[in-house]
Structure formats: C-alpha cells, structure tokens
C-alpha cells in the first residue's frame, strides 16, 4: 500500500455457514473487491464477543465488519438475533465514545450472496477510507478527550442510570 493514500485495515468476522460461504462464492465467481478486509471465520456470528471488536480497534483496525446469516436463516436457529442485539449495544457504546458509525458494520449475507457481500465490503472500505485512520484511542490518551467521552456516555445512558425514587 502506498505511503501517501490511506488504505484502511478492516477485520471481518464471518460466520461459517452463510457469510463465509458468500465470501467463497465471491471467489468462485471471480468477483473483484477491495482487499482491505481480512477475514476471520467463526462458527456463528453469535460467537463474536464485543471485546473481539474492541480488540481489533485497539490493535489498529480502522473498521470491523460482522457478517452472519440473514435473520431467520441462522444455522443455529436464532443466534444471529443475539448478534443483532450485541451489535446495537456495541454501536451505542462506541458512538458514545466518539467513534463514527461507519467503522462498525453488521452485514447479513446468505451463502448465495457473494456479489452482495463483495459490494458491502467495497462500500464499507469506501466509507472508512473517507473517515481516515481511527484516532479514537489517541483521544482517549488525552485527559480532556476522556472526560468528554465519559460525559457523552453518561448523557446517552442518562435514562438507564437514573436511580428510581
């Protein structure tokens, strides 16, 4: 990758049954897409711990894609709904910490959707490329940023944190 242009590094967590097979299909069909996403295979998107995503960001990823079977088509019946819940929670938290939404993406892809997955990857790479490198943890290392982030989180969760009378 060239020195001047920013090329994001994105970690993709793909479930074994639908989305990883979609990636296989994109390959078999020779669909060309951006090489920025490095794919890890898990059995189910339900295996993806929020800490894996945080870990990837901490280690220098500029974006993380979580991919699974379409709702209702999960190989494990309904585990992708749990992924959906975790994703929303994670995004909420990351947003409160000042991270742009486009850096974390939940993508459904059936085993037949190689082209759709490739398109989603291209789209995500484009968006993250526009955002530039992740500077989130840099903010965190400065005191003011940290205080701001904590305040933002407190505001976001004000309702939940309220002590009932």
């Amino acid at each position: 990758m060239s020195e001047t242009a920013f090329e994001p590094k994105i970690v993709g967590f793909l479930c074994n049954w639908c989305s990883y097979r979609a990636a296989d299909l994109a390959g078999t069909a020779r669909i060309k897409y951006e090489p920025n996403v490095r794919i890890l295979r898990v059995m189910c998107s339900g295996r993806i711990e929020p800490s894996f995503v945080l870990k990837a960001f901490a280690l220098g990823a500029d974006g993380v894609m979580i991919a699974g079977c379409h709702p209702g088509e999960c190989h494990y019946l309904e585990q992708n709904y749990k992924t959906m819940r975790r994703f929303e929670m994670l995004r909420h938290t990351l947003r409160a910490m000042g991270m742009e939404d486009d850096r974390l993406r939940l993508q459904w892809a059936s085993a037949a959707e190689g082209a759709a997955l490739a398109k989603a990857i291209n789209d995500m790479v484009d968006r993250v490329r526009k955002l530039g490198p992740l500077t989130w943890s840099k903010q965190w290392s400065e005191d003011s940023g940290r205080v701001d982030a904590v305040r933002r989180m407190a505001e976001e969760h004000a309702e939940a944190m309220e002590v009932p009378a």
Partner: protein
Amino acid sequence: MSERVGVYVCHCGTNIAGVIEVEALAQWAKENLPGVTVARDYRFMCSSLGQELIQEDIRKEGLTRVVVAACSPHLHEKTFRTACANAGLNPYLCHMASLREQVSWVTENKALADEKAKALLAGAVRRVQLQEPLEPTEVPVNPTTMVVGAGIAGIQSALELAEAGDQVILVEREPSIGGHMAQFDKTFPTLDCSACILTPKMSDVGLHPNIRLLSYSEVEQVTGYVGNFQVRVRKKARSVKEEACTGCGICIDKCPKKVVDEVFEAGIGYRKAIYRPFPQAVPKFPVIDRESCIYFERGTCKACEKFCPTNAIDFTQADEYMDLDVGNIILATGYDLFDCTKLPQYGYSRLANVFTSLEFERMCNAAGPTEGKIVLRDGVTTPKSVALIHCVGSRDKRHHPYCSAVCCMSALKFGHLVMEKTGAEVYSFYIDMRPLHKNYEEFYDRLQQEGMHFVRGRVAEVTDAARMPGEDGKLIIQAEDTLIGRQRRVPVDMVVLLGALQPRADAREVALRFGISCSIDNWFTERHPKLDPVATMTDGVFIAGTCQGPKDIPDSVSQGAAAAARVQGMITSGTVLIEPIVAHIDEARCSGCRICNALCPFNAIDYLEDKAVSEINAALCKGCGTCVAACPAQAITGNHFTYDQIVAEIEGVLYDAVLVNGAHAPKLPDLLEPAGTAVRQESHR
C-alpha cells in the same frame, strides 16, 4: 512451549500463483513469522504428493502445527486434517488460510494481494499455535427411525427403510396416511389415477411388519441428539378402540351428524361426525370428531356404540403419550395451500364459482363429493367455459416470491380433465409456462393441440359486473394479454385459482421442536442447497418432500428415498462421530448466573441446582459459541474457537497495522509471545 509450525503455500496451478508471489510468501513466512519451522510452496497441495510433503515434514521435522495456505477450508480442510491425522498429528492442529477464494480470485492489484495474503497467513500461523488437540466422540446409532408425516414422501421413506429390514415409526397427524396425494384425482403428465398408484403403497405401510404406524398422532417434544433421540408423541383420542375395531364402517353409516369436511374434501363435501377421511384410509379405524359429535355436545345419541358389532367405541378414551427412542428422524410434513381469500380481487369466497385447485381436485375425483362431475357451485350446472389462473400467491412479492413449481402442470392437467369431461372452453392465464421435467413439455404441446387457450398475463381481476354483451351472469376475467399487448375481458362460467404451495402454518414451531432451521419463507432448510438436499444442519434430522420447498410427486418420492438412504448409511455404520467443536463450562469459574441458559436454542445448557453452576451437554451442543461470548466470567470455552485463539488471529491479521496512538505494531518476534501479553498492553497504553 514453542510449537514447530509447517507452512504450505499452494500454487493451485496458476489460480493462486498467477496473482500471489507464492515462493516469496513462503520465504517471508519462514523469515518473519515466529514459530515457523518449515515453509514450502507446491503446485497442488491437495494432490497426494502435496499431502505426502506435509506428512514427511511432520515425521522428519517434528512439526506440531500445520498451516495450509490454499483454498477455502470448506473445500479441503477435511483433506488436510486427514493427511495430518495419518501422519500422527491431531487433525485439529491443522489450519487453513484461504488464499484462493479470499485473495487471488478476488483481488486485482497484485501488490495488494501479496499484502493481504501475508496478513491472512500471519493470522493463521499465530492462531494455529494456540489450537488444541480435540477428539470426536463416538456414539451408537439406534437403528429405529421416526418418519414424521405420511404423505407420499414420508410413505416412500418409511417403505424404503422397512424393506431394508429396519424398524420405522411413522407418525401422521391426520386419521389416515396419504397426505395431499390421496386427495388428487389424476397425476400429471401421465394422467395416472392418483389413488390407484398411492393406495397400494398405503396398504403396504399398514401391513408392513417393520412399520409401526401412529396415525392421528403428533410429536410433542424431541430431546437427545443424533443416533439417540427421545421423542414424545401424543396419540390423540380416536374414541375407537383399535384392537377391537374391524373397520366395517357400520358406525359411519349410522351416525346422524353430517359436517362439512374442511380437510380431506377441501370444504366442498361432507363427512360424518365419526369418519374415515376416505374409503381406502390406512389405518381403517374411524375417528370421532368430538367437536361435532352429538354425544359430546348434548350427552345423548351413542348411535355408533349401539350398532358397533365389536364394542369398539370408547367415548372415554383419552390422549395417550408415548416416549419413543429413535436414532434418526425424517421430516416429511408437507405443505398448505395458499389462502386464496388473501387476493380479494380474484373473488374467492365472494363469487360462488371461483374454486381453489384443491376443491377442483376433489370435484374431479370420482370418489369425491360430485363423483367426478365438474359442476358449478349449485351442484348441477356443467360449465361451458373455465378459466385457470396461475401463480395465485406465487411469484408475487406481496405474498410468496417463489414459484410453486407444480401449478403450471396442474393447470394443464385440469385443462385436459375439463375438456375431456365437459367439452368446455378452457383459458389458462399464465405468467410463464414452466413444464420443467421429463415429458412435461410434451404434455404442454398436447394441451395446445387439444385446444386449450393460453393467455400470457397476470389476471388483474375476476368480477361479476357485466359491462359488455355476453357477460351477463358470467365471471369476467380482466387481464392483459402481453403477447398481443392488449387488455382482454374473458367471460367464463367457472374460475379455478392455482394457489401457491406454502409452508405449513406451524412450520416454524415444528422446526424449533426438531432443532432445524427455516428459510425466510418458512420452508425447512437443507444442509446444502445443491449437494446435501435432504440432510439438515441438525445431525440425524432429515427432510423430504414439500416441507423443504414446492415440488411435485416424483421429486417428493426421490427425496423420500434419498432421506431413507442417508438414514440407512447411519444405521449400517452403527456409530456416529460427534464433532468436538462444542462448548464446555469450567465449574470453578461459573458463578451460576444462568445468563447462558436462555441463550441456547438447543437446550444444551442445564443449571445444576445442587452445585449452583451451569453445565453443557456436549451431545446437544452445536458449537455456535453464543454462550461463550456471553459469559461474563469467561467460564465457558468454545473448543477450536477459544478467546485466545481468536484474539491471536486478530493480532495476526493486523500484524502490519499502525497503532492509533502513533506507535507501530510491535515487531514481528513479539508475536511469538502467547496471546494476551505484549500486543495487548501496548494497545492500552
């Protein structure tokens, strides 16, 4: 503990080597990735010579881990795992990096492809070092099979297995076996009488010593796992003692209560309150419908009991529950017909002479309510013109996007029967004709020659509002004829709606009960759409017939037989290996919070009250890892996808990432440290 990793980069002819510098990649791995003892590239790793290369290195170089950078693990993981096992290395210590599907086939820029290949390889090498040896468990297979649903697919499965000498328990919800096929008059394209080819098979089922038939019964609960299922079946009260009944049918003759038969006669015929759906029913025992029986309503009558020569009537019979042990399960639960009232523009239930395809089947059937005469709803008038509307609810984004596969051929069959029996004019309104199988196109040709009219266009409306001369008292079909590009109004006497085949109303519930999955439309999902059409993701549960998707009789029969063959394979081998990729709970770390309990759709997690911890039943666990991710105490380990393994892979694929706090990633040798040391601390600085 330092592992000796062997890295094997496959050229795959030019599939990989044409894009990625494979030699340089292997060299790079050897020089830069900690733990790599041997790194080679080879033209075809999956060839026997390629596999021998790995095996020789395992023996001579003492490799403890193997990484094959080649194609997708879905293609050759098994190949390389077996190769490792044959050389004495536990198969789960081998890992693949998908350079072909994820890099060389999808990346245009060769330099970037090399970069990505390095990252994927770094991830695999780092991960493999933390992988642990695993052993599959071997469990015996109970040779008895349960077949659920006794339509033609289930009947075929049951007979195939029984003929091969295996025990079958056949469960059917309705009082008789036979399914939809028993309702049909003729079958396309041969115009065989449906009952004539089905009823011999039904009686074979009824008489077969290896088949235990549980009709008027439903599966309530399924527990256990492949080879060893426990199924609870509820045998609904027939109010007739099967051991005493001879099936003489006097009770049916004497019963004074007549009700509309919504199931077998599709609502256009009657049956008694004590009934057999049809004369050739198997089993022959009648059943009392307690909803309509006068005795159950008012407490008097008992005509059936008075006239029964063998005292077989038992008004006090209760539902019976049976717990059955089976090794495999075949689901052949069939389909429902689309509810045509959902398309009010076609007038079904509002306009008397609009019929559904199933009503029409019963009408054509010589044993049906009109004794095979095609007549209008008044029961006497023969129609002079009939319109057949295809794709009612199918190929329609508002209802079912899919094609129901059988309607075109049913319409041709109906057209033939109408012309043969009444001489009426027949109009078929179709979107596309899809006569796909053997001799189907020929049948279509034949109907064109017989003078059936084909109008290509989806019907907009069926109305009785006459606007033109000749439309009075008729049903008018308003449709665009797309072949001539004009709107047409066709007045007819009778309309038949070829409703979509749709999943059973309770398909999702049933799928959940058997632990299998459904597509968005609610059809049961097969393990692989092309290469494994009768297995499901749940080992030991197979599917056959229309519960998997719309299909015709020959396809249902093929699937029924195929499912039986799959089950027989399991029975013959006698044991089954259970994949060790499951989760387990470390009791010492479990706080008994029970968060994981509710997350498991397979009920694999039990809470042990006495120890106040949760426990995973490995035989039920499917290894999705959702509980692993949820455990707040990290007490659950997901075999082969442990926290450390996945984090190591993340660290690997990001080996070249620039950390956001400005520092570069740790130099490669640091990656040698066990996961969770140097890299993580740096990132949290």
